[in-house]
């Protein structure tokens, strides 16, 4: 390849491409991303990995798949949305060709899924195919449901219960696999809420400046004065919303947008004084168009970095809340809740603390590695390694 062609190629490389290239070169970041994706896939497949219902059962003269009718709405949600995200990722080039159509299609699919799930009733089927005789049955790898109590309580890790059991004989491995769903979805959605609020408020403050900016900046200052967990604890406990997943997501999201808003405001202040948004305005572009098509894409790198770290901290907050008894609680499986159980029996039941602690550590570390990698990729000048 001659020098001219080489320089041409670099010249044509898009911003997103360059970030991706830098990101991929970092082994920690690359593997962090792999772990995060694996966690989402595990969370989606959790009902097939750990369930008391057989995947395939031949008995009573019939062939049945008992696992499918037993799936709850949230399990379907993960099972459908994770592949959906994969499809969007694979079709990303088509997506950017027809953004309008693609977005309406995507929203249509999501609405369809949600309506179907809302129409189906909660299943709550306690049958267990483990002990039910059949001429042939294919059980999941871990043949226990996360909310199912077995007679052997406090059994240490063994081949029968890979991660042991808790005080009521629930299988910890099953609870861990299903608990991944709680942590990942709360982290992801809480941060999406924070992203929406932070980018909107910060963006408008940075773009319009003036009184709105002063108001938003003051409000951010006030919010930042509350120690992170304190405000969330007050909000959750006063509204009696323990164990309500959507409320917990909302509270975490609505208390953790300030960092993003500061960042977006700063970026918008910096960008809007540059010539290109002025040129766009001179060409008659509306404020909305300038913000969404010109300013936002240029601020996307730092926003993404901050959002990645934000997901890690949202997961940490969620597990702290469950641990303190303010978040998701038993029987809903959640890593923080297993740990809070561990606290009572810490003298002898080490496995209750070890496995969920490790899971939280791995998740948060992976997200942090991805965030670090992204930060270095977005702004190589900041590279500390």
């Amino acid at each position, binding site marked *: 390849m001659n020098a001219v062609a080489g320089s041409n190629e670099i010249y044509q490389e898009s911003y997103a491409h360059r970030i991706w290239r830098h990101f991929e070169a970092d082994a920690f970041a690359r593997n962090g991303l792999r772990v995060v994706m694996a966690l989402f896939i595990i969370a989606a497949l959790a009902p097939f990995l750990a369930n008391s219902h057989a995947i395939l059962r031949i008995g009573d003269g019939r062939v049945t798949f008992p696992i499918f009718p037993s799936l709850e709405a949230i399990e379907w949600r993960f099972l459908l949305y994770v592949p959906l995200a994969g499809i969007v990722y694979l079709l990303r080039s088509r997506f950017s060709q027809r953004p309008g159509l693609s977005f309406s299609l995507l929203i249509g699919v999501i609405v369809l899924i949600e309506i179907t799930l809302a129409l189906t009733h909660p299943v709550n089927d306690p049958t267990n195919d483990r002990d039910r005789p059949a001429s042939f049955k294919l059980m999941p790898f871990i043949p226990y449901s996360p909310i199912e109590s077995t007679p052997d309580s406090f059994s240490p890790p063994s081949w029968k219960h890979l991660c042991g059991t808790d005080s009521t004989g629930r299988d910890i491995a099953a609870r861990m696999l299903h608990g991944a769903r709680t942590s990942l979805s709360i982290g992801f959605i809480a941060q999406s809420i924070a992203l929406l609020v932070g980018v909107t408020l910060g963006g408008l403050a940075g773009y319009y400046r003036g009184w709105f900016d002063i108001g938003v900046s003051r409000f951010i200052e006030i919010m*930042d*004065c*509350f*120690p992170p*967990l304190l405000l969330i604890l007050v909000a959750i406990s006063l*509204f009696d919303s323990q164990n309500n997943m959507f409320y917990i997501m909302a509270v975490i999201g609505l208390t953790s947008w300030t960092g993003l808003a500061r960042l977006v405001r700063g970026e918008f202040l910096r960008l809007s004084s540059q010539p290109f948004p002025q040129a766009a305005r001179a060409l008659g572009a509306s404020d909305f168009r300038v913000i969404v098509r010109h300013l936002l894409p240029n601020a996307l790198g730092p926003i993404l970095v901050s959002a990645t770290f934000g997901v890690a901290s949202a997961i940490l907050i969620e597990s702290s809340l469950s641990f303190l008894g303010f978040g998701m609680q038993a029987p809903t499986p959640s890593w923080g809740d297993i740990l809070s159980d561990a606290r009572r029996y810490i003298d002898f039941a080490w496995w209750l603390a070890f496995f969920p602690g490790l899971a939280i550590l791995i998740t948060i570390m992976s997200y942090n590695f991805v965030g670090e990698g992204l930060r270095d990729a977005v702004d190589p000048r900041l590279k500390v390694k």
Partner: protein
Amino acid sequence: MTTYIIRRILLLVPTLFGITLLTFLLIRLSPGNAALLKGGGGEGGGRAMTAEVREQMIKLYGLDKPPLVAYADWVGRSLSLDLGESIVDHQAVTKKIAERLPLTISLAGSALVLSYLIAIPLGIAAALRRGKIVDRTISFVVFVLYSIPSFAAALFLILLVAGGDYLNLLPMYGADSLNAPEMSPLAWLWDRILHMILPVVCLTYASLASISRYARVSMLEALGQDFVRTARAKGLPERLVIFRHALRNALIPIITIFALELPALIGGAVIIESIFSLPGMGQLMFQSLDSKDEPVIMGITVLAAIVTLLSYLAADILYVVVDPRISYE
């Protein structure tokens, strides 16, 4: 300089109003109130109370007033440092907080000091051997520490060294042993120190991680400055270059970030106190959240926010004081 400080202090006033108003509205807009909980009218299942007495209570604590009027009342009283009295046991909120405050301060304070004492040498060591195995090891270990949730670490430490299946070196719960009142002052102090080791360790390692990362970056920046090259060029021993020229300049941003660490430390102390059953502010917070003890919740939240606010201010002022190059005139 003086004008800058005065302006900053005046700007505190609207922020303080915002903090108190936000907390107040949050408490007021939530369903149910302490009188209902205490009177057994809610699901809390307190003592049975006649409707008449409950009405009296609601009047007494101003729970029937519109939120903004009640807020104005609260502000009026707070200006004379009267935060009201607890609905649960009728003790003054200031007294309740004052009883708990020393423990939380000593916990967060020793964690802060300790993390600085460990983090700065770590950061410097990493910066001096940039990219070498020492730097990589320190950076990686610090990164892992940063990702461990403090409550999980606390559980493991209890399991390993405090009376679990393994070592039994340190006490598991509480701030004092049961026989603490009969101890001599020295024995009491030793006992207290033993009880505080685990909580302080748990609180220290997380802030240690972020401070040492700052220290490393800050030291690297200082080492790249022209004056360091000049110092080397004029033949100063490396030790002097590092400690007298680079380190002094690197310390400025490191010291001022204590303000950023403080809110995290207060939040962390809430969890740690709850795990180790320490009778500090965190425990008081949980008790009052359970009983919806509005004046106490209000007092603690506002106090924590004010401490944070003041530490931000202190950091900004300190920044100007220690570095004459920065001026806000």
